[in-house]
């Protein structure tokens, strides 16, 4: 008796040919699908790896330890040691003199200039406030020690991002500077510390102190205005269309219009925002108010469509039960339909919010592409948004902005992941098993 199982497919059996062919094509199809997923994930992995490797160094920055001597400067200026006089001192010069003293081998004018390039141009601000506090505390006038940010060049050099081989004239740092940095390192006057200013500081022309805080606040303002206007209008419109509007030609036209608006390119909404909010209504250019309203128009069709879908997925049997008990239309909507469609509405809203967070083109059109140093305080203040900040920084020539751009992208991606994870969590939590 044959040992072949009666239900096993075998190549030798001509009757099995079709079945085998079908089985093989199914296996092939599955491999294609798997291949597609692997390709997509590889691209994603490559993107993330590039961004992270470029960007994570931006979260650290090089600091240089300096020693302030105000006594010397006061004597030179022939001033009494008072708070007012100290306030008027030239701290740039104090820092510069300090370096000259540390490195007496700097003799030529160019070398002295190179010494001045060691610290950030804005280091004098921190130096001044530290010195004033030291004087207030115990009347100290010298040996005031603090860490200040290094200039972007030195920052890049210490992080190993500058090319130090080749001819000196083709480099950004001179041999002398490289030597000085080595000496500072040996004297333990150089360190990498967490770059808190990246997250709490506003934008700047100097990469070493540039931060995303301004654009983050701008994005938050924009989001609040956007969701605050789009959600009530969108959800209300969806409820009306789904539950109250009688079937008519107007309703059909409105539905077609809304569905198509969801597919319009975002830059067109930028033009719309420019025409309506800036020209017609005269809102301030580059304000978060104008930006938020423009983005609200952008996500309104999406919110309407997703809310309608959520409402339509409420089983009609529940509505029938409520109506048969004598519930009015409003009671059916607010007691039954809205609570039961809430998970879907929330998911749609959060996904729209995530989209609005990342939209750049419409904001560019309404002028949010300018360099804004101050953190916006009112919704009418000029501001910029996180994706626009990324766009601006990616265009700047200084080497220090390369890692900053990637760092800002990391922050934006993190926010989007959090928003999407929150949407998934909410949907799971409120899901109803019918």
């Amino acid at each position, binding site marked *: 008796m044959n040992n072949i199982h009666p239900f096993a497919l075998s190549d030798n059996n001509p009757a099995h040919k079709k079945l085998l062919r079908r089985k093989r094509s199914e296996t092939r199809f599955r491999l294609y699908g798997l291949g597609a997923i692997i390709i997509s994930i590889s691209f994603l992995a490559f993107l993330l790896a590039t961004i992270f490797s470029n960007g994570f160094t931006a979260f650290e920055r090089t600091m240089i330890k300096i020693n302030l001597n105000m006594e010397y400067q006061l004597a030179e200026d022939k001033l009494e040691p008072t708070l007012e006089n100290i306030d008027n001192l030239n701290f740039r010069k104090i820092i510069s003199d300090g370096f000259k003293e540390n490195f007496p081998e700097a003799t030529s004018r160019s070398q002295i200039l190179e010494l001045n390039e060691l610290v950030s141009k804005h280091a004098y601000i921190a130096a001044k406030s530290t010195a004033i506090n030291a004087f207030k505390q115990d009347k100290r006038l010298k040996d005031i020690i603090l860490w200040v940010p290094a200039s972007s060049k030195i920052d890049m050099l210490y992080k190993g991002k500058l090319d130090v081989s080749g001819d000196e004239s083709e480099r950004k740092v001179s041999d002398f500077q490289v030597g000085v940095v080595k000496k500072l390192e040996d004297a333990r006057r150089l360190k990498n510390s967490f770059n808190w200013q990246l997250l709490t500081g506003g934008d700047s022309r100097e990469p070493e102190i540039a931060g995303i805080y301004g654009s983050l606040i701008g994005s938050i303002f924009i989001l609040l205005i956007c969701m605050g206007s789009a959600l009530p209008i969108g959800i209300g419109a969806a409820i009306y269309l789904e539950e109250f509007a*009688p*079937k008519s030609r107007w309703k059909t036209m409105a539905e077609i219009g809304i569905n198509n608006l969801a597919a319009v390119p975002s830059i067109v909404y930028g033009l719309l925002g420019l025409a309506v909010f800036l020209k017609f209504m005269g809102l301030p250019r580059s304000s978060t108010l104008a930006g938020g309203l423009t983005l609200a128009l952008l996500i309104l069709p999406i919110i309407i469509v997703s809310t309608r879908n959520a409402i339509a997925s409420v*089983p009609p*049997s*529940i*509505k*029938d*039960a*409520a*109506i*048969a*008990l*004598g*519930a*009015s239309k409003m*009671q059916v909507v607010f*007691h*039954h339909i809205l609570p*039961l469609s809430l998970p879907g509405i929330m998911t749609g809203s959060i996904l729209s919010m995530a989209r609005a967070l990342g939209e750049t083109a419409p904001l560019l059109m309404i002028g949010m592409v300018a360099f804004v140093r101050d953190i916006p305080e009112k919704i009418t203040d000029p501001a910029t948004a996180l994706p626009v900040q990324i766009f601006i920084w990616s265009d700047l020539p200084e080497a220090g902005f390369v890692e900053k751009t990637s760092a800002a992208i990391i922050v934006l991606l993190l926010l989007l992941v959090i928003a999407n994870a929150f949407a998934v969590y909410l949907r799971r939590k409120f899901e*109803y*098993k*019918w």
Partner: protein
Amino acid sequence: MPDTLKIENARIKTRKLDVFYGAKQAVFGVDLDIALNKVTALIGPSGCGKSTFLRCLNRMNDTVDGCEIKGKVLLDGHDIYADNVDVVLLREKIGMVFQKPNPFPKSIYDNVTYGPKIHGTAKKKAVLDEIVERSLVRAGLWNEVKDRLDEPGTSLSGGQQQRLCIARAIAVNPEVILMDEPCSALDPIATAIIEDLIDDLKKNYTIVIVTHSMQQAARVSDYAAFFHMGKIVEFGTTGQIFTTPKLKQTQDYITGRFG
């Protein structure tokens, strides 16, 4: 027009009732009297218009787009389709139980109290508690759920859910209960329980029940109306319809020759 039995104290009367779904007519000139505190069964093959007719009695067809009603439906002599009728008040008087049990995804307690709450007939917890107990007792569900009123209504079995829906309908204190094939989604034991329940309920409520099962109609109802193609073919007491039907069509349906 077949000769219809005259009911002495009819709760609901329909006169020349026509129902159109757009251009298509589903119910043709139906005159029917529903007797007070009795069970009237509407029987007939699928698609003969009995559910459509039933839904006219509490104006549930208003929710269907493009549905048009002509004729009169009189509750205690008043046309429920008159202009100044408030459907909310109407549905307080005429309740409905559906084919597939549809409890709200809320607790058993909240299911039963929903009706009284929205009509404002009861607000205090003590009053609501009493309504819940009374309704669940009358629906034959109290003993099974009295210890777990906070559990969701959807956690009950099919038969229990349907009894919950009946309790929910009763809680509003209607005078008429409409039932659209209430047992067709239930197993025979649950069906038997509900049929016993209907027998009990008719002491206090007027009941109209649509059913596919002739055996059920024969067991449960006092009067039966045989529908076919949107018209009433024959109407009479259950005893008469099922033992001595006047028309051959009725006889054929009852003996299972068609439908």
